[in-house]
């Protein structure tokens, strides 16, 4: 009955609130064993081994955490068939997107899931029945599949992390796919969809340098370049989202004179801004664009190489290629 052959590493990184009534969460490594006793059903499916990455209320987040988390996952992928990460809802998508870029040639499933509580614990809707237990069971099942990708397992779907976006928190699916393509659907079991996951032939490379000082702005009419110049003084680059408003030619001209890389991100239409430091990006969610830029600037500071990294579909992140 158990997938005896499959060994799954279960990484704890927050998001461990089991229900509104349950007070035990994983704050330290010592909490893992009693916590696992609260969810004995996960042991029915596969042999799991727990690992600690971050406590429930730790402040550790962003590039610093991505580096330590991806290093841990990279090591675990050597010994285990797959990795399931329980992560806080607040940054689970960011963590999963960062993991996608940090792991080149991924050849095994890395599934992120977690509890919606306590973030939405105050809501009138009872989230317990669709909570962590069910998400975790689905994630564990997905982890036994031949699915070499970093995914989010919430509600009744499995989404490629780089295409995820926040959905309606009152629906069963708090994450949706930006192009409506899902890696799998959960109905009665997990039905795999046709997708473009890579053939797992390679050795996984760890490329987990992320810069932490990128300015991310949404363009609004009237935004002045002097504000940006001030913000950029201690920053490695700028990501500007103009999905809702067109950039004025004079503003584009000002951006092109900055001595820092500027990514103009429009999810729906490609900008035509010209400038050696300007990168016109479209077809990515803004979350993925931001994390990709943090990662790309961690790999190179050369404008041409940066442009190549940003514009090429490296991990299936583009929705319109």
């Amino acid at each position, binding site marked *: *009955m158990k997938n005896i052959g499959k060994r799954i590493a279960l990484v704890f990184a927050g998001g461990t609130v089991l229900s509104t009534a349950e007070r035990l969460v994983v704050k330290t490594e010592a909490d893992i064993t009693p916590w696992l006793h609260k969810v004995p*059903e996960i042991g*029915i*499916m596969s042999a799991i081994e727990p690992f600690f990455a971050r406590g429930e209320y730790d402040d550790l987040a962003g590039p610093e955490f991505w580096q330590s988390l991806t290093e841990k996952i990279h090591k675990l992928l050597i010994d285990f068939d797959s990795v399931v990460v329980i992560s806080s809802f607040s940054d689970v998508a960011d963590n999963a997107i960062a993991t996608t870029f940090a792991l080149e040639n991924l050849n095994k499933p890395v599934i992120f899931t977690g509890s919606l509580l306590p973030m939405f614990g105050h809501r009138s809707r009872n989230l317990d029945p669709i909570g962590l237990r069910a998400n975790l069971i689905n994630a564990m*099942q997905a982890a036994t599949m031949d699915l070499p990708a970093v995914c989010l397992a919430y509600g009744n779907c499995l989404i490629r992390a780089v295409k995820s976006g926040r959905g309606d928190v009152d629906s069963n699916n708090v994450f949706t796919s930006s192009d409506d393509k899902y890696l799998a659907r959960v109905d*009665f*079991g997990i039905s795999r969809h046709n997708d473009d996951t890579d053939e797992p032939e390679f050795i996984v490379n760890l490329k987990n340098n992320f810069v932490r000082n990128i300015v991310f702005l949404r363009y609004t009419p009237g935004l002045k370049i002097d504000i940006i110049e001030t913000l950029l003084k201690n920053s490695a680059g700028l990501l500007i989202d103009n999905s809702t408003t067109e950039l004025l030619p004079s503003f584009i001209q000002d951006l092109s004179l900055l001595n820092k890389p500027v990514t103009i991100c429009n999810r729906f239409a490609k900008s035509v801004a010209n400038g050696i430091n300007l990168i016109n990006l479209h077809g990515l969610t803004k979350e993925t664009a931001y994390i990709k830029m943090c990662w790309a600037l961690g790999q190179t500071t050369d404008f041409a190489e940066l442009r190549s990294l940003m514009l090429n579909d490296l991990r299936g992140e583009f929705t319109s290629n």
Partner: protein
Amino acid sequence: MKIYFFSKKTAEQTDVQKKIIKFLKESGVLVFSNLLERTRETDNLSFTNMNGLIVEGDDVVSEAGYFVALALAQEKQILYLLPKGFVLPDQLRFLLEDKKLKKFFHLAHYSPKSITDHLADFIDLTETGELRREVPTIKFTLRFTPRADRYLNWTCQRKNLAKADYLRKLIEEQIISDVDYQKFSKPESAQKDKE
């Protein structure tokens, strides 16, 4: 009520599988199963919408573990049916000892004759949260006049019931409608009634 039935899928359904599906459907249960085709009406439903899970077989494929775990995570009732003489897989044995999980996990060893009794009990349990159906185990001899016997034969034939079932049904109805007995069997409520 919606129940998911999981069993080993083969080219043709076994007699036991057919019997389980038939009994559940005849009991008014909406049956979903890995053995049945999906329909348009049920296409938007998922396991979350089920009220209970029935697993049958000693050699069910590994997916059964996933369904059992998911049902436990969602606190749904589970009936695990094993043919008589077969033992529960090691991975599930702890469920019978776990204080919380054993409320949801019910193991039954069946014979072709007893399987519908287990199913009827499970439907009761899933529907009401308690086991109401009682199995008749008290045996005694009852003598009738030939006239009463003729009547029993006649009426049971028309109602398509066994004579014993007909008599049990009559007594069950009498128990429910007998106010004095109800007061007698529930002294606290009887006391309140008097007040």
